[in-house]
């Protein structure tokens, strides 16, 4: 447990499919930051650290955003790791606060992301995407995750209806989240009859592209105690970057490497957590992460999907996740963390998990060639 740092507030700029012309990346990030500070009860003038992750800030950087937001600080960072950016920024912010380099850090992310921006981003995601994948034409990462889904289906003997459990369960959560872009209840028939995007992936296996922003406020334990409201402590954070040089199958990931160390450092077991907020770019990766981190104890993935996830509605991605709430570019990395903080602080409204004390939050992403290369996870705990 970090003795020094607590998460005391969270915010989300309302996700939208088609933003109006005057709403820019900065607009979404600013809204999320202000909401998070409001939630924490901390004035902007007391912020002395700022971290941001965004695909569409250029040519601006963190410092330009600080200026525009009116933040003067003694600590800053900018993260480029997309889906893995939130846990990474939290890891750095926590250490900065422990070391006394800063006391109150805002961690933010956001993107104005429409179809054209999305394609430009994926075609130039990195040099390999630009030179070796985009010219095929690959047209975004869907085909790569169709391959991983096929591979995992074969490995675990899963059917299309098994995979459907993830989008179906998350949609059920989304019906209780006014901030999700898709909230209409969904049936297995809706899923099976939907448009094939890259078989076996259907439209409901691919995140809807949205614009939005997310933010959390991290401060010292001392200051958190003075605020009086419940806060969130950080039991442990572990990460694994580029563990296999893309030579692996993408199914046994860096999460398997960090599993034992993560639970030991956190002083708890997978069965102790009250919910999981797993980076959900595709259903297959939700499963791979849960399995690699030890949350499917008997190894029976089909049973876990149909029983634990769908029937028992064990809390995974209680906002509806990116699959129903939407993927706001790099804000997708913070989306699950914001939801976990809401749940652990007891402010998740209609979808509140009763007595949520311990949560698992993961980050995954940055496809180098065939699969993601960044894996990180945090165990968070309600304090007060």
């Amino acid at each position, binding site marked *: 447990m970090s003795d020094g740092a607590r998460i005391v507030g969270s915010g989300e700029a309302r996700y939208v499919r088609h933003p109006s012309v005057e709403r820019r990346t900065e607009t979404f990030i600013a809204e999320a930051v202000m909401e998070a500070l409001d939630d924490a009860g901390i004035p902007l003038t007391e912020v002395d650290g700022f971290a941001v992750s965004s695909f569409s800030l250029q040519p601006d950087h963190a410092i330009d955003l600080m200026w525009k937001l009116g933040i003067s600080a003694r600590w800053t960072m900018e993260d480029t790791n997309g889906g893995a950016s939130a846990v990474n920024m939290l890891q750095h912010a926590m250490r900065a606060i422990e070391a006394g380099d800063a006391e109150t850090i805002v961690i933010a992310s956001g993107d104005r992301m429409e*179809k054209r921006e999305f394609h430009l981003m994926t075609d130039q995601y990195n040099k390999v995407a630009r030179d070796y994948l985009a010219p*095929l*034409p690959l047209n975004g990462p869907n085909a790569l995750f169709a391959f991983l889904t096929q591979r995992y289906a074969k490995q675990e003997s899963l059917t299309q209806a098994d995979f459907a459990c993830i989008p179906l369960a998350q949609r059920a959560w989304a019906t209780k989240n006014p901030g999700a872009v898709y909230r209409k209840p969904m049936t297995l028939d809706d899923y099976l009859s939907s448009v094939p995007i890259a078989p076996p992936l259907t439209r409901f296996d691919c995140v809807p592209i949205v614009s939005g922003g997310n933010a959390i406020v991290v401060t010292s334990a001392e200051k958190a105690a003075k605020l009086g409201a419940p806060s969130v402590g950080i039991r442990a954070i572990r990460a694994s970057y580029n563990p296999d040089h893309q030579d692996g199958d993408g199914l046994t990931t860096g999460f398997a490497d960090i599993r034992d160390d993560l639970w030991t450092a956190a002083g708890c077991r997978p069965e102790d957590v009250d919910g999981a907020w797993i980076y959900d770019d595709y259903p297959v990766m939700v499963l791979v992460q849960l399995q690699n981190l030890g949350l499917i104890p008997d190894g029976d993935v089909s049973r876990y999907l149909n029983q634990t996830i769908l029937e028992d509605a064990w809390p995974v991605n209680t906002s509806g996740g990116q699959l129903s709430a939407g993927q706001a570019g790099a804000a997708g990395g913070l989306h699950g963390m914001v939801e976990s903080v809401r749940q652990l602080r007891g402010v998740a409204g209609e979808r509140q998990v009763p007595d949520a004390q311990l949560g698992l939050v993961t980050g995954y992403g940055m496809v180098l060639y065939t699969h993601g290369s960044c894996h990180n996870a945090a165990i968070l705990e309600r304090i007060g």
Partner: protein
Amino acid sequence: MSSHFVVAKCRSCGYLAYPPRIACPTCGSLEFRRQVLDQGTVTEVTTRRPVNKRRQLPWGNWLDQHATRLATITSDLGPRIVALVPEGVDVGDRVTLRSQASTAIALPGQVVAGQPLLPGGTVGDGGPGIGTPLSDYPGRK
């Protein structure tokens, strides 16, 4: 039209890198030579639905969008290659890897991986370009 499919081979330990790297991840050597990689087996296939009818590539070319058949090829020498495959090629099939530097098209019965499409290179110089419907490839009846 197409050429040998080539990967980087570490001069010191033989590690095969595709796409190429600066340093060998197993022995740290900085010296690589070229290695032809031509035989492999299809391990996964998908047909990616066109997303937009027409869109512009980052370097300016316009691309007509059609459904594209893509596959993971597990090469006999190890590396997994993401490739464009002709219709009819399916999981378990043995294939020959080829590459076409400037147009990246698939010849019937062969597989073309994503070698660089050179910035400014024209799409479809004499042959079908990227995004040509698979049924229009030369020799396909």
